[in-house]
C-alpha cells in the first residue's frame, strides 16, 4: 500500500532575492516541515536557484541523483524551463507547476497559479473608479521578467480605456532603494501626481518614504501588490493612501506542495488547474491575507 513506500518530492523555487521570493522560500520551508511531520514516508527536498540557468541545473541534479516521485516547481520563466521540466516529466515524475505556467501546458499534472494580469487589472480598475476615470499617475516596474510584464500589461490595458494618463514608467527592480530614488525623481519631475502604482509592495515602501519626505499632498493613492505583511497592516489600519493591496500570495507554493503530497497519502488524486484569484485586499478582508510570522 501507499504508506509502505518512500516518496521523494522535490521543490524547486527561486532563491530569496527580494521580498516576494523570500516569502516563497519561507512558505516552502514551513510546508516541508508540516509535510514531513505528517507523512513520515515522504521526503521533501527544497532547492533554490538564483537564475533560470541555475534552476535548470538544479532540476538536472535532482532528477539525475534521486528517483523523484513528484516535482513542485515555481519556474523562473516559462520558456526556459519548459524543456527541462518536460525531461523530468518524461521519467514519470508527477509535475506540479506553480505560478508561471509552462509553454506547453500538457506537461504539467497540476497547476497552481496566481494571476499576474489580474493583479495589474484589478488594481487599475479600482484606481480608475476612485479617480473618476481621469488623472495623472506614475508607475514603477520591477525586474524585466514575464511577471512584471504581465502585471504592467494588465494594468495598462485597463488604464488605456480611461482618461487617466500614465506620466512615466521606469524600472526599479523590485528594490526599495531604487524605488525610493525613482520616486524622488518622479516627484521632482511632475508637479502633480494623483496616484502611484508600484506593482510590488517592496517597492511601495520606498515610494511611501519618498513621498512622505517630500511632503507632497497631491498624491491621493499609493498602491503596490503582492500582499506584503507591512502593507496589509497598513490596509488593516485603514491607511488613506494605501487602502488596498492585491494578493499574490507566496503561500501558493505551500498549497501546491500540500496538494501534491496528497497524491501519495492515499487521498484522491489531484489534477488540473487552480488559478488563484487576485481579489482586492481591503480593510474588511485583510485578516485572511495576514501571516504575522512570514518574513513577507
Amino acid at each position, binding site marked *: 500500500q501507499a504508506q509502505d513506500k518512500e516518496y521523494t518530492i522535490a521543490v524547486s523555487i527561486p532563491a530569496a532575492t527580494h521580498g516576494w521570493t523570500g516569502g516563497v522560500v519561507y512558505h516552502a520551508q514551513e510546508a516541508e516541515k508540516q509535510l514531513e511531520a505528517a507523512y513520515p514516508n515522504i521526503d521533501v527536498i527544497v532547492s533554490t536557484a538564483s537564475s533560470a540557468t541555475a534552476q535548470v541545473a538544479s532540476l538536472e541534479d535532482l532528477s539525475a541523483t534521486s528517483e523523484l516521485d513528484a516535482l513542485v516547481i515555481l519556474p523562473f520563466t516559462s520558456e526556459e524551463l519548459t524543456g527541462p521540466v518536460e525531461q523530468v516529466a518524461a521519467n514519470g515524475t508527477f509535475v506540479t507547476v506553480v505560478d508561471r505556467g509552462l509553454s506547453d501546458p500538457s506537461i504539467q499534472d497540476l497547476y497552481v497559479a496566481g494571476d499576474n494580469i489580474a493583479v495589474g487589472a484589478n488594481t487599475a480598475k479600482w484606481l480608475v473608479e476612485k479617480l473618476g476615470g481621469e488623472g495623472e499617475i506614475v508607475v514603477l516596474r520591477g525586474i524585466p521578467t514575464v511577471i512584471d510584464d504581465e502585471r504592467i500589461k494588465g494594468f495598462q490595458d485597463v488604464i488605456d480605456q480611461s482618461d487617466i494618463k500614465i506620466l512615466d514608467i521606469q524600472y526599479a527592480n523590485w*528594490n*526599495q532603494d531604487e524605488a525610493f530614488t525613482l520616486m524622488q525623481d*518622479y516627484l521632482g519631475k511632475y508637479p502633480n501626481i494623483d496616484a502611484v502604482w508600484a506593482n510590488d509592495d517592496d517597492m511601495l515602501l520606498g515610494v511611501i518614504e519618498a513621498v512622505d519626505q517630500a511632503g507632497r499632498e497631491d498624491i491621493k493613492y499609493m498602491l503596490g501588490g503582492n500582499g506584503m505583511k*507591512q502593507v496589509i497592516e497598513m490596509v488593516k489600519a485603514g491607511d488613506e493612501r494605501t487602502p488596498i493591496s492585491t494578493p499574490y500570495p507566496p503561500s501558493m507554493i505551500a498549497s501546491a506542495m500540500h496538494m501534491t503530497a496528497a497524491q501519495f497519502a492515499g487521498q484522491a488524486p489531484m489534477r488540473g488547474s487552480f488559478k488563484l484569484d487576485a481579489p482586492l485586499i481591503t480593510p474588511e478582508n485583510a485578516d485572511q491575507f495576514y501571516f504575522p510570522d512570514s518574513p513577507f
Partner: protein
Amino acid sequence: MSSAEIATRPESEGFKIRWGDLAPFIALGVIILLGTMINSNFMSANNMLNVITRSAFIAIIGVGTTFVIATGGLDLSIGSMLAFVVGIMVMAMNALAPSFGPWAIPIGAVVALVVGSLCGLMNGLIITVGRIEPFIVTLGTMGIFRALITYMTDGGSLSIDRSLRNAYRPVYFGDVLGVPYPVIITLFIALLGAFILYRTKYGRRVTAVGSNADVARFSGVHVGRVRTMAFVIQGFCVAVAAICYVPRLGAATPTTGQLWELQVITAVVIGGTLLRGGKAHIWGTVAGALILEVIANVMVLSDMVSEYLVAAVQGAIIIIAMLAHRFTSSR
C-alpha cells in the same frame, strides 16, 4: 642653484598636475549643464538636494574604496557587507530599544562601526595572510555576507523598531542650516580620508604599496599591514554609510546594497584613481559618486529614452564622459 630656492617652488609645478585631477569635476559640470538644458526642474533646490543626499552612500563608501584601490586591491563585497552591517545594526538597535530607549541608536551605530571594521579586517587578513587575489576573496565574502543577510531576514525584511524610527529619521532626512546630515557626514569622511591619505605616514605608504609593493617592502613598509588596514578603513566607511542608510528606509532586505560595489568602483575610477593602484583622489571619488547619481537623475527627468534603454544610455554616457576627459585633459 641653492636648495632654499628650489624648495620654494612646488606651487608652480604643482599647478600643472592639477589639471588632470580636475577632469571629474569638469565632467560633473558638463553633465549638470546638460541636465539643466534637458529639464528645468533639474536645477531646483529640491532636486539638487535629493541628488546630493542620495550620492552620500556611494561617496562615503567610495572614500574607503579609494584606499583599497590605491593599495592595488579591489573589494567586491562592499554591497553585501553594507546589507550585513545594516542587518546587524537593526537587530542590535531593536534588541537594545526596550532597555535603552533612544540611546539604542548611538550604541547600535557603534556596533555597526565595529562590525564593519571587523568585516574589512577579515577581507584584509584573508588576502594578505593567505596571499590570494582580492578579486577572488571578496567575491567569496560577497556571497557570504549576502547569504548571511538573507538568512537574518529569512528572505524577507528586517525593520527597525517603530519606537526608534522617528528619533533616527533625521540622520538621513534632517539638515543643519539647510545642509542635509548625509552631506555633512560625507564631507567629514572625505576630509578625514583626504587627511589620512595625503597628510599621514599611513597614507604615503598606501600609495607606495600600490605603486610598487617590492620597493615599499625594501623600505621597511609592512605591506600586508598597510593593505589590511585599507580594508579595515573600507569596512569602517561601509558602516558609516550603513548608519546613514537605515533611517532612510528603516529596513534591511536581501537586496540591500546589491551591485553597489560596481557603482562604487566606477565612481572611484571616474574620479581619477587608477585601478592598478598607486594613485588616489579622494575628492575625485566624491565627484564620481555625484556624476553617477546626476546621470541617473537626468535619465529619469528627461523623457527621451524608453525605460528599457535607460541603462544603455547611462553606460554610454559614462564611456563618453571618460573619452571626453581623456581627449581634453593633457593629451
